[in-house]
């Protein structure tokens, strides 16, 4: 259950970038290699932002699929489970192309 502390970190970043302006929504990107559950994150967002300037803002979670590139055969594979291995030759000598993201992408400010 680290979604709650991740929400607090998101809120810190969002408030810093909002510079006092009212925030309507915060967009985050979460890679599939991160053990963060998007629905739990959204649920925790309400708890973490209650009684803060971000209360009532929406959290938009973009789930980024895990993709690896094989160092042997060069094929890129989108993974169904977070075990990095090549979908064609089965090699585990792969490079993670995406899926490790955990970032605040943007803020949507409210019209005042």
């Amino acid at each position, binding site marked *: 259950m680290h979604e709650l502390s991740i929400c607090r970190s998101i809120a810190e970043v969002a408030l810093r970038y909002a510079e006092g302006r009212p925030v309507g*929504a915060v967009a985050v990107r979460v890679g599939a290699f991160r053990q963060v559950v998007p629905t739990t994150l959204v649920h925790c967002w309400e708890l973490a932002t209650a009684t803060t300037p971000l209360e009532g803002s929406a959290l938009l979670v973009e789930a980024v699929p895990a993709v690896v590139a094989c160092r042997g055969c060069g094929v890129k594979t989108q993974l169904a489970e977070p075990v990095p291995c090549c979908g064609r030759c089965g090699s585990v000598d792969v490079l993670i192309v995406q899926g490790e993201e*955990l970032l605040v992408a943007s803020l949507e400010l409210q019209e005042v």
Partner: protein
Amino acid sequence: MGRFHTHADGTVHTHADGTVQRNAGVGDHSGYQTGPLRVEVLKSILSENDRMAEANAADFARSAVRVVNLMSSPGAGKTTLLAAVLGRIGEAHRVGVLEGDIETSLDADRLDGLGAQVALVNTSAGFGGECHLDATMVRSALRCLDLEALDLVIIENVGNLVCPAEFALGETAKAMVYAVTEGEEKPRKYPVMFRAVELVVVNKIDLLEHLEFDLDLFLANLDAVNPSVRTILASAKTGEGLDELCRWLLGPR
């Protein structure tokens, strides 16, 4: 569609006003991509933690102390293993322990009197009791240790296979304790943790003969998620593997 919903593109969110759409497009939020009110951030969510972890790492480097972040699920035997390790190296080497525990000082009490400086990091001050240590908690607990007088600090993280793997503490190395009673499939279920570490201590190896545990299958699963990891077969009870573990903990001299 309710306040809490999933879009076809995989995004999930609530809308503050309870409506589904405030921008153009049918739930794909293309409207968020442009528009004057959108502020680009692209900032790592854990950047604040990472910044604090770097400050910790700088302090460790200045004091020339090696810091090992030791993680495991609850009950894998971290504290018992640590007590056995301290029994071997606690007097001859200058060792400190940062003990992460959600509510109690029970684990820290068990390590008392073994020659090490022990500092308790009680995580209950967090948001209802944290399931992991973060760099800030470690930083505040470091005040209780005299780093200059230490060669090795072992951070005993909160027992949990998910959360601790996400939070850098500024450590020199990450290791985990895994018990053979946990089942062979754990590396595939918790790949973030098993991929994050340099060392897996396969603990309670003395129980092997009583279990239907397939060690080779476990090692194959581990290899699938972390091909370069080192493993030490150990038992805090019989002492197997403990000398090797002590050498690894003390690190390159």
